C-alpha cells in the first residue's frame, strides 16, 4: 500500500543529530510533551499492530476456535496439519510461483519502459527521452491510484465469457474471417473459470496495475544518475541495450531491489485480487493463495489457531524473501 524508498536509513545517518541538552532533568512541560507526542502514537501502534501480530504467533500454537472456546496449547500440531493439507500446500505453491513471476515480469517491463522514456532519445547531443515521454508516464501511472478491488472487478469484466473485452478483441479478426466466408469458431473462454488460464489472467491484471508505478519510480532514479556517467559510456561507443543493462541498471540497483521486495510482499499476499476475481479460490483451487485460505479458515470455519499458523508460515517466508533480496543485492558491490 505504501511508497517504496531507496534505502532504509538508520536514525543516526543524518548529518546533524539535534540533541536535547544533556545533564539536566527534563522540565515537566517537556515530559508532558513527550507523553503526548510519543505516547499517543506508540499506544495506537502497540495496541492495533504490534500486539495482534505477536498474539498471532501464540495462537498458532493453540487449538483456539473463537471467543467462547478455550485455547489449549497444542504445540506444533497446527503446523503439522497445514503441511499435510493439500489445499494449503497448493496455496503456498501458488504464492511462491507468484513471488517469482510477478516481480520478474513487472520490474522488467517497468525498467524497459523507464529506459525508453529517459534515455531512449537520440544518441547524439543531450541525453533525453523520446518525444511525448511525459504523456506515457502520466497515463501508465494512473492504474496505480485505483483501488485493487476496482482492478479486480474491472478485469473480471474484461475476462468475462459473456461480452468481456478480451474475448471481444480476440474475436474481432475471427468475425472478419467469418464475414469473408470462413467458418472459424469464436473464442468463448471463461478466462478466470478455466484452471489453465486463471492464475495467468490474475497475474496479467496485477502487472497491468503496477507497471506504471515502478516505471515512474525508475524514471526518477535514472534521472538522478550523473549525466557524465552516461555520456562517458556513450563516447566509449556503448549502444542503448548495453547502456541500459550495464550502466543504468547497476546505478539504480538499490531502487530495483526495493521494488523487488515490494512486489514480493504483494505477491505473497494477493488477497484482494484473488478473492475478487476468483471468490472461492478458483476452479479446483487453481488460484488459491494462503491469505484467502487463511481468511476462509478463520472467519468461515472459526479455526483461528490453524489460520494463525498459516499466516505465521507465510509471514516467515515474506521476511526471509525481503532479507535475501536486500542483502543479496547489497553484497555484490560492498563485499
Amino acid at each position, binding site marked *: *500500500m505504501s511508497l517504496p524508498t531507496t534505502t532504509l536509513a538508520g536514525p543516526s545517518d543524518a548529518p546533524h543529530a539535534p540533541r536535547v541538552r544533556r545533564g539536566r532533568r527534563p522540565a515537566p512541560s517537556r515530559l508532558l510533551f513527550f507523553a503526548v507526542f510519543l505516547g499517543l502514537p506508540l499506544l495506537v501502534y502497540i495496541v492495533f499492530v504490534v500486539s495482534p501480530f505477536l498474539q498471532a504467533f501464540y495462537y498458532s500454537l493453540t487449538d483456539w476456535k473463537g471467543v467462547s472456546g478455550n485455547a489449549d496449547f497444542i504445540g506444533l500440531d497446527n503446523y503439522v496439519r497445514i503441511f499435510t493439507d493439500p489445499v494449503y500446500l497448493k496455496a503456498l505453491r501458488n504464492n511462491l510461483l507468484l513471488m517469482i513471476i510477478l516481480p520478474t515480469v513487472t520490474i522488467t517491463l517497468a525498467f524497459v519502459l523507464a529506459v525508453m522514456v529517459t534515455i531512449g532519445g537520440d544518441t547524439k547531443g543531450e541525453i533525453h527521452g*523520446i518525444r511525448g515521454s511525459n504523456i506515457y508516464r502520466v497515463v501508465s501511472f494512473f492504474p496505480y491510484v485505483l483501488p485493487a478491488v476496482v482492478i479486480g472487478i474491472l478485469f473480471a469484466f474484461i475476462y468475462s465469457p459473456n461480452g468481456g473485452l478480451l474475448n471481444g478483441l480476440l474475436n474481432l479478426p475471427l468475425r472478419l474471417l467469418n464475414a469473408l466466408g470462413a467458418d472459424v469458431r469464436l473464442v468463448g473462454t471463461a478466462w478466470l473459470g478455466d484452471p489453465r488460464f486463471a492464475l495467468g489472467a490474475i497475474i496479467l491484471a496485477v502487472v497491468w496495475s503496477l507497471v506504471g508505478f515502478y516505471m515512474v519510480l525508475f524514471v*526518477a532514479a535514472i534521472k538522478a544518475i550523473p549525466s557524465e556517467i552516461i555520456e562517458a559510456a556513450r563516447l566509449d561507443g556503448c549502444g542503448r541495450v548495453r547502456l541500459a543493462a550495464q550502466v543504468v541498471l547497476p546505478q539504480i540497483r538499490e531502487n530495483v531491489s526495493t521494488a523487488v521486495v515490494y512486489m514480493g510482499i504483494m505477491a505473497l499476499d494477493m*488477497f484482494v485480487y484473488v478473492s475478487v476475481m476468483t471468490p472461492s479460490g478458483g476452479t479446483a483451487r487453481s488460484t488459491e493463495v494462503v491469505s484467502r485460505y487463511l481468511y476462509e479458515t478463520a472467519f468461515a470455519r472459526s479455526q483461528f489457531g490453524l489460520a494463525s499458523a498459516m499466516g505465521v508460515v507465510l509471514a516467515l517466508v515474506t521476511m526471509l524473501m525481503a532479507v535475501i533480496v536486500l542483502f543479496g543485492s547489497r553484497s555484490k558491490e560492498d563485499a
Partner: protein
Amino acid sequence: MTQAPPLDPAVSAGESGTRRIEPRRPRRSHGDRAFAGVAHIVLVVWTLAVVLPLLWTVYSSFKTSREILTSPFSMPSEWNLDNFITAWTEAGIGRYFVNTLIVVGGALFLVMLLGAMCAYVLARFEFPGRRIIYYGMIAGLTFPIFLAVVPLFFVLMNMGLRGTYIGLILAYVGFALPFTVFFLYAFFRQLPEEIAEAAAIDGAGDFRTFFQIMVPLATPGLMSVTIFNFLGLWNQYLLPVVLNTDEDKYVLAQGLKSLQAQQGYESDWGAMFASVTITILPVLIVYVIFQRQLQGGLGPSTDK
C-alpha cells in the same frame, strides 16, 4: 517487448571522429530513428492497453445489461444516466461513498497528526530508547496485515469497537503509522536546527514550536505523505472486510465487492459498470490535479 536495436556501428564510429560541438540539434541517425520508432510503438501499445479497459468501462456504464452481454463494442442505444442513478441509490454506492469519506478522512487526519508528532520527536530529540522505538516502528513496514487480522478482530471486539467507525479508523491509523513516520522522520531531520533554537530563545514551548514553526516548514513533505496515505487507505480491503461487518457501514471497496458477488443472480451489469465508473472518476480527477506531486514525491532526488 524487448526491442534489440543494432549496436549502431555507424553512430559510435562516426562520433569519435567528429568531436566538435554542434550548435544546432544534431541530425538523427538511422539507428536513432529506428529505435525511436520501435520505442514509440511499444509505448503507444502500452498506453492503449492502459486506457482502453478504462474507456470501455466508462462507456459500458451507459449500456443496458442486455447490450453489455451481447457485444462488448456496441454503442449504447441511449445515452442516459439511469445506471448511475440505480448505482448511487439502489445499489447503495452513495452510502458506501459517504462511509468511505468518514473512515478515510478520519484516519488520514489522525495518522498525519500522530505520525508527524512521533516522527518529530524521533527526529529532533535525543533520548534513551530512541533507536529502539524508531526501528520498532520501521519494522512495521514489513508486518503482513493478513497475519494480524485474526487477533485484531478480537482486540477490537474486546474493546467494544468492532463494527464501529472509530475501531476501523484506529486500525487504519495503526497500519499507516510506520510508513508515515518513516517518511516524515526524514523531512523533520532536514529542517535547520537554528530555527528551533531561535523559537526556544523567543520563549516558545515544545508544543508551539511544533505546531507553529515545524509543521509549516514541513508542509511539502506532509503534503506528499498525505497523498500517498490517502491512496493507501482508500485501497484498504482486508481490514474493512474483517473488522467492518455491518453492511450499513461498508466502505466503497466492500460495497463494490458485495455488489459483484450479487451479480450471479441479479445481474444488473449496467449498474455494476456504473458503480465502478463512479469509483474511478473522483480518483481520476484527484490524480489529474495532483499528478505532479504524486510523481515528484517518488524517488530520492526529484525534489532537489
